[in-house]
């Protein structure tokens, strides 16, 4: 299947592992919209994890301009970022996704990927982004997916749905991990994803 065909027909209920793997292997800079400086919020520790795995992280939150998140200065909006960004990771509810995507579509150059966090899904916004060739992931967490494909998450009894007979290095701080393990399943999604979809349709 060609990349183009894949993009047009992306099934947002079940992403092939190769789609997620390709994104996480190729993007270098990630702007996180809704990044929180509160260290018990999921956005904070996803930001921290992705930074530790070597991504160039940019926190976007208008309420915290002038402050830093783990040494990275907050910016108010996507258009305030003065350099190209590979991926926009949106930590907002489904009902707040569309304006962020619309702003992302005004960037030059365009981002390669728009990622909506676990629980967040907006099919209209996704279709707009995909129509200009941007890859979209919805209702997933990049930290969980990175941890899953590298099998780092297996420490918590989570089914990584990958296998490998290779000896991997023990992960240390700041190390990029190999995501090229053999996939067991195609990344099925289940009721929790359907529930998020139903919610976004209701709201």
């Amino acid at each position, binding site marked *: 299947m060609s990349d183009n065909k894949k993009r047009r027909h992306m099934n947002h209920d079940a992403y*092939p*592992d*190769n789609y997620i*793997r390709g994104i996480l292997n190729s993007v270098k800079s990630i702007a996180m919209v809704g990044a929180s400086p509160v*260290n*018990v919020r*999921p956005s*904070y*520790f996803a930001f*921290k*994890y992705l930074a530790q795995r070597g991504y160039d992280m940019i926190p976007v939150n208008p309420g915290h301009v002038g402050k830093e998140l783990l040494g990275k200065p907050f910016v108010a909006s996507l258009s305030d970022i003065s350099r190209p960004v590979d991926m926009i990771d949106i930590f907002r509810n489904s009902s707040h996704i569309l304006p962020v995507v619309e702003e992302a579509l005004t960037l030059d150059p365009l981002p390669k990927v728009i990622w909506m966090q*676990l*629980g967040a899904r907006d099919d209209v916004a996704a279709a707009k982004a995909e129509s200009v060739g941007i890859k979209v992931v919805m*209702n997933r*967490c990049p930290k*969980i997916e990175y*941890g899953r494909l590298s*099998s*780092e*998450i*297996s*420490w*918590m*009894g*989570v*089914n*990584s*749905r990958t*296998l*490998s*007979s*290779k*000896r*991997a*290095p*023990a*992960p240390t*701080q700041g190390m990029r991990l190999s995501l*090229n*393990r*053999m*996939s*067991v*399943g*195609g990344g099925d*999604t*289940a*009721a*929790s*994803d*359907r*529930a998020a979809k139903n919610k976004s349709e209701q709201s």
Partner: protein
Amino acid sequence: MSDRLPGFATLAVHAGAQPDPTTGARATPIYQTTSFVFNDADHAASLFGLQAFGNIYTRIGNPTNAVLEERVAALEGGTAALAVASGHAAQVVVLQQLMQPGDEFIAARKLYGGSINQFTHAFKSFGWNVVWADPDDISSFERAVTPRTKAIFIESIANPAGSITDIEAISTVARKAGVPLIVDNTLASPYLIRPIDHGADIVVHSLTKFLGGHGNSLGGIIVDAGTFDWSTGGKYPMLSEPRPEYHGIRLQETFGNFAFAIACRVLGLRDLGPALSPFNAFMILTGIETLPLRMQKQCDNAKAIAEFLAGHPAVASVSYAGLPSDKYHQLARKYAPKGAGAVFTFSLKGGYDAGVSLVSKLQLFSHLANVGDTRSLVIHPASTTHSQLDDAAKIKSGAGPDVVRLSIGIEDKEDLIADLEQALGA
């Protein structure tokens, strides 16, 4: 990297395991340690706050146990799993996440006697009220639903008689009631039945039985199917509400479709404490590698022995869903086409006394209270596993006074049949 799906036997050997990063050891090492050092204070705080992947203390997680957890999750088709000290511990930990005092759960009447006892007596003191339903009458589950119902609990293949439960029909009742379906898959193992494929939301096992398979190590496991939405209606506050123990984290929001397994770990196992020894996890993992081979042989042996018993003049009846004449045969063909399991019952024309005599004369079958061993086992449920039930409940659960239960091992079936023949004949 292709997204090709490996088969069951490949997963049974590989899932969750990889060469040890430090030493290159290919077999999964036994990490026989209570605790794990932190890199620094920030790392420690991140681990305690559920913000980073890693190990803290073996009561919460252990690398050997984690391999076992991922392997069983993969075999069952779940999102994550949690290993605990026993099948009974798995049941307590699961229900602790779902039940508040005064809540109810519906359970199939045909269950392992120890579960009936745990649900009836031990859970009553927690204020968790079991309501019994008849797995042969699906409408009895519908009638048992009330606003306080929080879960439905069944066995896929039910102890002691090896009867097959219509998982899909009961999962429809659970979905309509808005509660998760919990399936104890101990007697089937995922080799024969994968309850998640038929609508289960949570699967539990006694690992002690067919998964471990060698009668040497206790263990239990909880598998999260990732299928249930815990956020609706505030019915499951352990999953949906901010947890004060973890600085206000909401588990479903943070962990998505494996939040239930995380709740069982960080709220259940951490606070109730029934941790599995890493040594037991290692023994059970080794057992699982041969699960497909053992289970098929045990099913094939069981069918041959059930056929032999059905034709024996001293035998009044045989309950084995693998026999075409059995009441559960159609369900067995649907749910367990590879075999109807290796645990079943039969009754003797000579009643209780004949049962006692049979057990005493057997020389290969071991008289003990377990199932799912490589060795063939025999027991008289009415006086042992189901002895705490009254006579009416014994009969309802398939453990009447004339009933003998067998668990068939991997020996040569001719030797097992010869042993039964001499014990029945003399």
